[in-house]
């Protein structure tokens, strides 16, 4: 994460939503989550290790996601995270709030035709 504090808070506000969204389709491990966010945002948003894990742990602590160590044959042990029921609810809620917020921002910040 950058040291710019405005960007920090912005990212923090959206980061949880971003992470939760990546888990909607099924369990994923940390690196996968980071990769998906980067590719789906077209490289605009990227999480490094230092920014991702605190978020994951915080979400886990709040019971929105749950982690599980999985060891597949021929692969190394990884921790997979999946959405909990509470997480799913939270994701829907945050999406709604976020889009409402974005619409409001667009209206307010867009060119004034009045």
């Amino acid at each position, binding site marked *: *994460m950058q040291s710019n504090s405005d960007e920090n808070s912005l990212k923090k506000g959206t980061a949880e939503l971003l992470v939760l969204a990546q888990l909607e389709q099924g369990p994923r*491990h*940390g*690196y996968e989550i*980071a990769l998906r966010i980067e590719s789906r945002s077209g490289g605009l948003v990227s999480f*490094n*290790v*230092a920014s*991702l*894990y*605190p*978020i994951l*742990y*915080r979400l886990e*602590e709040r019971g929105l996601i749950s982690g599980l160590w999985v060891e597949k044959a021929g692969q*190394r*042990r*990884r*921790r997979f995270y999946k959405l909990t029921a509470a997480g799913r609810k939270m994701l829907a809620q945050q999406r709604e709030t976020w889009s409402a917020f974005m619409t409001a921002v667009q209206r307010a910040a867009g060119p004034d035709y009045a």
Partner: protein
Amino acid sequence: MRDFRAHVRQHLPALNISAVREAKIVEELAVQLEELYVRLQQDGATEEAAWSEVERQVPSWQELARDLVASTPQGCLPPEAEHRSSRRRLLTFGLLHDTKIGLRVLWKERTFVTVSVLTLAVCVSVNVAIFTLVNSVLFHPLRVPEPDRIVLMASQFPKINPNVSINSSPPDYFDRLRSITALEEQAMYNFTGQTLEIAGVHERVAGMIATPSLFRLLRVSAVQGRLFDDSEGEIGHEAKVLLSYGLWQELYGDETAVGKEIRLSGRSYTVVGVLPRDFAFGRGQPRFWLPMAFTDQQKSDEGRFNNGPFSIGRLRKDATLEQVRQQLKALDGVILESLPALKPMLLNAGFQTTAEPLADIMVRDFKEPLYLLWAGATLVLLIGGVNLCNLSLVRGRVRAKEMATQLALGAGWWRLFRQLLVQGLVLGVGAGIVGFLTGTALLSGLQAIGLSGLSGGITASADIPVVVFSFGVSVLCGLAIGLVSAVPLLGVHFGTVLHDGGRTKTSGRRARVARSGLIIAQIAFAFALLTGAGLLLVSFRNLLAVDPGFKREGLVTAFLSIPRTAYPTDSDVRVFTARMLESLRRIPGVSNAAATSTVPLTGNYSSGPILAEGYVPKAGESVISGIRMVITPGYFETMGIGLRRGRFYGAQDSDSNASVIVIDEKLARRFWPNEDPIGKRMFRPANAREIFVDSNTRWQTVIGVVEETRVRDLQQSDGLAGTYYLPYWMNPFRDIGLVARTEADAAATIRSVRAELAQIDAGIPIFDVRSMDERADLLLVPRKSALSLAVLFGSVALFLSAVGIYGVLGYLVAQRTREIGIRIALGSTAQGILKLIVREGLLLIGVGIACGLLGALALRRLLVTQLYGVGPSDPLVLSLVALLLGVIALIACWFPAHRASRVNPVTALNWE
């Protein structure tokens, strides 16, 4: 290949969260970094480029650590600056954190915690109870400033009276005032009892007579009025009195007492002051103080060796007890030279003056039993501790795998160790709090049921030192538990434990040896405790069975004091006594009554030298002393004391000039081993000068020899040459002991006695009214208290040992289920298995009992003074204790052994 875990470990500051959690975070971060690194290289990046990307992933490890901790529930990291600069902060922080983890782990193991806390609480509580007694009675018997600088001086005549004397005579006091310069202040005091009218009722009140210097010496000041001034220590000025706070309140409420007149035994005294509420000095809690004034006769050599009062002094700042002793020794030399005629006799008697700290003298009777009980309580604690250690070892083994995992995941060894310690401490302190509360409750419970005989009238209460002691004991126990829990950690090599399912050979054997050793120690401790309790029990039974030489049942005893004001002459006293006895004998059910100077089994008695005509002492032989009793006719008949020769006192001896004496068999044997004492003459020197026969010698003819009786106490600890009985009519006295034999109910008789006496003179209260059985019980109270505590300790020890053996063998069986299964599969019978396990148990028990026996023999001297009629290594007691312990231990073995014999081989072998 790079080691990513090491990379993370190296850079990530300690998170101070659960070691497991931390290890997992480290692993997860490492996995992700490694994956990134591998992927980048697969996508064609160079090793360096990939690595620099990895490094870029974490711009600030400090910040990451903080974020991680913030997102982890178990902790928060101390601020960065302090994290680096203050190790102490970090340590406290870590401890706080470990306590949290400890509590969480303990909560998960509630059964373990409950058992441990209860065991420990029982052990701590008995220790708290005993320590409270020890602390109050032995450590703080004297509650005045600088109590350890107060010494008591006493004249000793060990060959005359083997009991250590604590008294002196008035001339000694004046000599010491002049010669013992190592003392800055000296005083003399004695106990007294007087009749006082409170709210219209004549009551006997305990008090003290003291030289005015006593209060300076004790550094007490009056809360009202003033203390005595030195002139009030002179004859003619001594009709003054100081009141205790309690007596003041009782007599005058909140009104000032100073200047008031009170009548003590008919004589008028002016109140000069009131002492503080918390002032306590001397047994029996004196309620008033009178000035001690001496007549010239008392001060002269005539009063020498009439040892009654106590002589104490306060050491000068720069002086030592040794200096006092040396000055006393020099003074003894001067006294001996001033009495040339007496010198050989005094030397033969072993005359010397001793000085001891007053506090030591006050507690001398309680010191040994209390220290022994303290040792007993410590043994209970050790036994309980052994159980806890065993439990912790088992638990440690169970947790070894978990700990190995933590170690494998990178948790520090020290970290795990600290967590175990903290868990132990949490347990210990928890048990300490419970133990402190139950301990103080136990003590007040003991005091409530009358088992306070070990405190010698000193109130025992839990104060700061007791709290500190309880806390110290609990912390020590907690540390011990923590350390023992960590023993399996020593053997943990995570590989073995993890792969081996917890069946590591070395650590398993080490723990097993440790457990067996602990059990052996436990049985040995229990053996020692039970032996002590058993010996005390036998002693107590022996004392109960003692024949005191008189018939205890149906005897009622009481005291009264005939005031000088109403009965000024000896003849008045005689008339009163005769009238009183006559009316007592008229009470229905009372078959006989008598007056005596000494009521047996009160602990009080007087003694004095006695000599026989024609008895030639061997060279160096000392004058001897016997118990001196003055009695009215009817005493022997009332008491049921048997006549051996001659006759009892009768009406013919009521002539005040009759020069007769009755002695007991012991004294008769001493002077006339092969002769009939009847008709022989004896004399009693009233002072040192009268010891030589001359024309003034007052001879007394022996008219009777009676059975020996126990006068001072049941164990006859006086060590004197015997008892002699003088006729009352010749030696009338005012402080009278009454004995009455009754067929009626004791309580009813006592009521009638009171009524009869009130009829004769309502101004003479009778006090300390008790049946003789009650007196015997009272005398035994200290022993009963010690015995009850010893039996309590023994029972707890027995129970804890049984639990310990059960636990260890049970664990052994559980551990060896596979082996037992194989044995059964190979044809062992259930009986064979039973034998196998019982044999293991027997071995432990046998070795334990053997060690206990050796210990008991080694420590046998400690108990000797507390025993009566039984040797400290009494074979019967020792074998009974061994048997009891063996049987209980075997029962404790039986259950696990039985379980082992029922092992199903199929289940056992499929177990893993």
